[in-house]
């Protein structure tokens, strides 16, 4: 469609406003993390990196980051295994209930986090606690994995649909066993989709707070929980600022990599 210069400029302006809306708050947080002032003040009074340093050596922050990394790795590992198995079953086979179950896999992100959280919470209380498994890091991993499966499933299923079945059949015709086909044909074809799914599900888990707050045991504090608990404490504000600034910078890396790995067509969440 061809537009007049004015129409193009108008669309450009609208897009510009939307992009400014998207990035302005993030830039404000980043700038604010270098603010000299101990209490919140805008505009910043001067430049300092002392809060970044304090955040880096803060024991609470370090423990929380470690907990988040453990939870993220555990959830991602489970999601990779179950998500890729499920995507093969959905894409390569026809079976009764396939449609219904492909909807079920989306439910953990389609329904609000609080519903997933509360459902898992009451299930753990009624089923796991009588078995002697109490709330802790393990229950957090269980909760996170539930919604991370979708991310892996989406990535791998899309890749499987694109690559088709013929390469696997050729491999079997040439005498390869199921394991060899899996290892030398199927796996290389979906490898980058697996990496993208893993990165995104780690990022998702690393940022999760709702399901976490319903499934974490006492003494377990992930980074988002640490931020939330310190958000309303004025004397912690400079360190929260620095942590928030660091998270903005850090998150660009895995997302950029994942975007590069998945297809340029994008569009799928």
């Amino acid at each position: 469609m061809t537009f007049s210069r004015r129409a193009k400029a108008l669309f450009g302006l609208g897009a510009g406003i939307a992009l400014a809306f998207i990035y302005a708050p993030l830039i404000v947080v980043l700038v604010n993390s270098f603010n000299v002032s101990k209490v919140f003040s805008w505009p910043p009074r001067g430049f300092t990196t002392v809060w970044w340093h304090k955040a880096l050596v803060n024991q609470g922050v370090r423990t929380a980051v470690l907990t988040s990394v453990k939870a993220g790795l555990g959830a991602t590992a489970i999601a990779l295994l179950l998500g890729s198995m499920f995507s093969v079953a959905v894409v390569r086979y026809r079976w009764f209930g396939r449609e219904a179950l492909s909807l079920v896999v989306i439910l953990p992100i389609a329904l609000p986090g609080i519903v997933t959280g509360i459902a898992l919470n009451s299930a753990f209380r009624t089923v796991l606690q009588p078995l002697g498994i109490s709330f802790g890091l393990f229950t957090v991993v269980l909760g996170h994995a539930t919604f991370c499966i979708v991310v892996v499933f989406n990535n791998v299923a899309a890749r499987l649909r694109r690559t088709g079945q013929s390469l696997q059949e050729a491999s079997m015709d040439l005498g390869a066993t199921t394991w060899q086909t899996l290892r030398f044909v199927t796996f290389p074809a979906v490898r980058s989709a697996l990496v993208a799914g893993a990165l995104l599900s780690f990022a998702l888990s690393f940022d999760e707070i709702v399901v976490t707050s319903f499934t974490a045991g006492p003494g377990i504090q992930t980074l988002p929980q640490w931020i939330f608990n310190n958000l309303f404490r004025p004397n912690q504000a400079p360190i929260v600022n620095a942590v928030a600034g660091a998270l903005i910078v850090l998150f660009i890396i895995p997302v950029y990599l994942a975007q590069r790995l998945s297809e340029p067509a994008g569009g799928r969440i």
Partner: protein
Amino acid sequence: MTETSTGGKGAPATRRLSAFLYRHDRLRLAGLLTPPILWLVVLYIGSLGVMLVSSLWGVDSFTGSLVKKVSWSNYHTLFTEPVYRTVALRTLGIAISVTLIDLVLALPLAFFISKVVQGRRWRYALLIMVTMPLWASYLVKGYAWRIMFDKGGVIDWMFAPLGLHGPGLGLTATVVALAYLWLPYMVLPIYAGLERLPESLLEASADLGASPLRTLRSVVFPLLVPSVVAGSIFTFSLTLGDYIMVKIVGGTTQMFANIVYDNVGVAGNLPFAAAAAVFPIVVILGYLLAVRRSGALENL
């Protein structure tokens, strides 16, 4: 590829198993399906079931312990107490406002990326710019809007030369922050919808004498409806379930999910919280059923 392919000692067994699995396709399928189904159906759907059942239970008002006796009293309270209706309506209002704001921002943005920008590289770069903040920390984004709206914050500072001040923390801040959080969820389906729109339709419309504006109104927008509905599923569902953002930027404002959360934590009334959690589920499932015919679900 070592001994297995050349026929070493272990080969026949592996090969036989492999061939067996190849011939017994269903067995392979069963092996693939069992673990994820166990997880999704037993753990997740089972948990939802336990929650639904527990919403019919009660809590002993003296000891605070669970009373596993079935009654509708939780639902009765939810329906008859006016405060819950007020909060539910407010939450729906916020969800609708958030959806509309996102729509107004997303349409020009998606259209600009898909139809105005020339060249694949630029288009892709812009798309990444839109999606990147989607993955930035939820809490950091909430915190950002707290800094924006707080007393003496960025918005007050921007309005100061005009002699005005911002609305402060409260309902407005909540709507803006939520619209901000869910904007990429609206942009992406609309962009995908625009990409699927065949160029020939737009050319045909122009050839038949329609102005670009007329083409937008009569050709592009009607075809975008499923994408917009798909986006609104996210903005709606995410807003209905949110209780954290309103705590960060909402001042004393309460949303429906706060009722759920407070009943788990502060009040310790898990059955009542479970009953309250049914409200967003019902609204979202109802919405999903209502829009199923529009073809929006294929656009998710």
